[in-house]
């Protein structure tokens, strides 16, 4: 049983969970890798154990989210100007588009942003989203409806430009 669910995470959820970690870390790849290392360490040390009550995917996404929150809290809030590296590169068309969707999504409030990602990107149902975000199903519905309206408005505005 123990190895079965871990095996399922490693084989079936690895890709989606990494992308979720990346989204929880403001799309920072390095931070997402750190978070996934911490999450896998929790599994190996038995600090995070699946008890079978919830859906495995929602449980694992919840672990990733809490780990990402803890990780981001530890980061320094200010960076010395000496540590900042400026890289000027020419961006391709796809990168422009990639930046574009991030730009649109980051205009949404955090909760709406996360609810829409979990529903439309990770194909979770609303009650599963409530488990991942550890909030009530009513709040999820509210964030879902408002998020959709706001995102649609942003996309319509984007298409009009």
């Amino acid at each position, binding site marked *: 049983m123990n*190895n079965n669910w*871990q*095996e399922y995470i*490693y084989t079936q959820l*690895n*890709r989606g969970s*990494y*992308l979720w970690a*990346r989204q929880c870390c403001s799309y920072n*790849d390095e931070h997402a*890798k750190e978070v*996934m*290392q911490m999450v*896998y360490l929790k*599994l*190996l*040390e*038995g600090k995070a154990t699946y008890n079978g009550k919830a859906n495995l995917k929602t449980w694992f996404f919840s672990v990733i989210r809490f780990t990402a929150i803890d990780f981001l809290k530890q980061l320094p809030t200010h960076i010395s100007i000496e540590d900042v590296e400026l890289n000027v590169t020419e961006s391709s068309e*796809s990168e422009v*588009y*990639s930046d574009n*969707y991030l730009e*649109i999504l980051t205009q949404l409030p955090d909760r709406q942003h996360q609810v*829409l*990602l979990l529903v*439309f*990107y990770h194909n979770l149902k609303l009650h599963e989203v409530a488990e991942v975000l550890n909030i009530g199903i009513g709040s999820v519905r509210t964030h879902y409806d408002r998020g*959709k*309206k706001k*995102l*649609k408005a942003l*996309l*319509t505005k984007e298409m009009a430009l």
Partner: protein
Amino acid sequence: MNSEDRIIEDFFQSMKDQDKKISTPPVPTHSHNKKQNWFPYSVAASLLFLGVAYVIFEPQKPVADYTINITLEPRRVNATQSLVDAGISIEEWESPTQSLIEDF
């Protein structure tokens, strides 16, 4: 599905397509079982190895080039021995002042 959802679906689908170029880091390859504490086992194995190595490679004591054989044999005594090996007979004894009597 209404048109609002369709627009959002398309948006996230294009986002997924963009994310396909993102490489996923490999899953840790070590054992999935709970981590064991190997320290006591490693100490025991090291001590055992040292013991076996000492027995096998024990330093040899230097061996002398010659041998000394000591044989103990009982001493055979066939006759009793006189306690006085040499002595002056009483008949041969001469007084130190005898010459005075004879000369004077």
